[in-house]
């Protein structure tokens, strides 16, 4: 069943398909999910979290810490610099500063330069991380987190957040816990975890959770579209569960950075 689903999903969203097929493939996707009904969430979660993810630390050498993440088509690289002297002339502060910046390459999206539209991501990355970083451990200084999206294939922001927390850990910045983030898309009655950009383009609603699994705290939560109470609870719990699993993967990578690329 899983192989069949895998094949159908990859057929649905293969990049060779002309644009006109997009709508009918969405209808097709809904059908697949209806076929699988209740188990759709779990199946797709396994499919997307188990198979296609690559995470590794240390792709850039100049930075204090860095990480690379690849989830399906989405490829993100994050470098962390610091703690270092604040560049801008700023007032004295007895806590450190966290400076986050997210940028897209011009070739990250189907239409050139479209990634520039996601201006709010820098602020959202900051909000997701600031609760986890122990800012009081580096007074008067700044930690810079620079994220670059090499290729945008959906669920960009959650992948940036997870990758940034891996890079922060690699840089040896003190944190209360690793922050992992997962988003879900709501299509009809079904909830899809880790949506691709095509799924995001046709979603009825979306929800993103950033979570600190060991502390059991949500650092960031955003929701769009129309949701009922029960559905929100289910989707948030699904995300938190996936965040915990993702966190285990991050911990493995930090413990044994050498063995990663092969997986």
């Amino acid at each position, binding site marked *: 069943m899983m192989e069949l689903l895998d094949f159908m999903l990859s057929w649905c969203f293969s990049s060779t398909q002309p644009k006109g097929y997009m709508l009918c493939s969405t209808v097709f996707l809904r059908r697949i999910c209806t076929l699988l009904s209740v188990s759709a969430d779990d199946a797709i979660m396994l499919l997307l979290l188990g198979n296609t993810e690559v995470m590794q630390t240390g792709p850039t050498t100049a930075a204090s810490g860095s990480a690379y993440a690849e989830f399906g088509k989405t490829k993100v690289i994050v470098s962390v610099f610091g703690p270092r002297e604040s560049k801008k002339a700023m007032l004295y502060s007895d806590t450190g500063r966290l400076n986050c910046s997210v940028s897209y390459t011009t070739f990250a999206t189907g239409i050139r330069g479209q990634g520039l539209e996601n201006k709010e991501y820098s602020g959202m990355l900051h909000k997701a991380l600031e609760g986890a970083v122990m800012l009081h451990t580096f007074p008067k200084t700044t930690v810079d987190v620079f994220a670059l999206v090499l290729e945008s294939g959906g669920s960009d922001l959650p992948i940036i957040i997870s990758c940034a927390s891996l890079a922060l850990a690699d840089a040896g910045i003190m944190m209360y816990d690793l922050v992992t983030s997962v988003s879900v898309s709501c299509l009809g009655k079904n909830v899809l975890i880790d949506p691709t950009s095509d799924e995001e383009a046709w*979603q009825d609603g979306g929800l993103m959770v950033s979570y600190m699994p060991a502390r059991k*705290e*949500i650092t960031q*939560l955003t*929701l*769009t*579209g129309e949701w009922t*109470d029960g559905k*929100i609870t289910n989707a*948030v719990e699904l995300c938190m569960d996936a965040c915990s699993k993702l966190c285990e993967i991050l911990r493995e990578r930090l413990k044994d950075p050498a063995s990663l690329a092969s997986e």
Partner: protein
Amino acid sequence: MVGLSEGEKHFIRGGIAQDLRADGRTRLQFRALTVETGIIPQANGSARVRMGATEVIASVKAELGKPTILHPDKGKVSIYVDCSPTAAPMFEGRGSEELSAELSVALQRCLLGGKSGAGAAIDLSSLIVVEGKACWDLYIDGLVVSSDGNLLDALAAAIKVALSDTGIPKVNVSLNNETDGEPEVDISDEEFLQFDTSGVPVIITLTKVGKHYIVDATSEEESQMSSAVSVSVNSHGQICGLTKRGGAGLDPSVIFDMISVAKNVSQRFYTLLESAIAAAEAAADE
């Protein structure tokens, strides 16, 4: 930034813990709300909302545009918020950029719904004039005139009132072949169509100070918050958007509790807003 002494901070936190805030309100009580409509004659619809010392203006302008190729049967809505330097000196120049962007994104998330259009405040297909050729582009602009906390809720209320005040000019379309199939659009300046604004949600921000959460926080109270959750609720009681602010993490059960509290409070806010609109209409008739 609000400069507060230790004593003042203690007073605010202590008051919230005892359900009696500095201005005499309880935790889930709003400030006095006043509404005015039709304040900008140039716009198709406009409103001014005051909540205590917070004052915002929303204007809606409609322009004829072309629908996108991906959605030929839908109009377009864009929301943008600007913070005036009159509200606070720090908004001067580029100082307001971050806050403006945050408010704009939060409003877009709450009002525009999912990408497929589900849960949107405005039915985009009602904005279409000729499918694939012409549609109405709605430009919703918010302006923060005076800032004393709870900007997001005030802006959402102002947009809701401004949309109900909006009249879209009636258009007569004549298709002829001489102009390459381009429709000729004749805009009437006498007849206007009203919007169905029943689906436009309100936003309720619950600000967590200590162990408790409060609605309609002033900027002094906001400076003491650990985190805030903004929930947008439509008149059917459905959640159509949610944003979290503030650095501190929240326990999932607290978030679910906040959502249900926001849902209850939103019904009271709807009645409050409706009575404010009725008062505004009565004042305009006199």
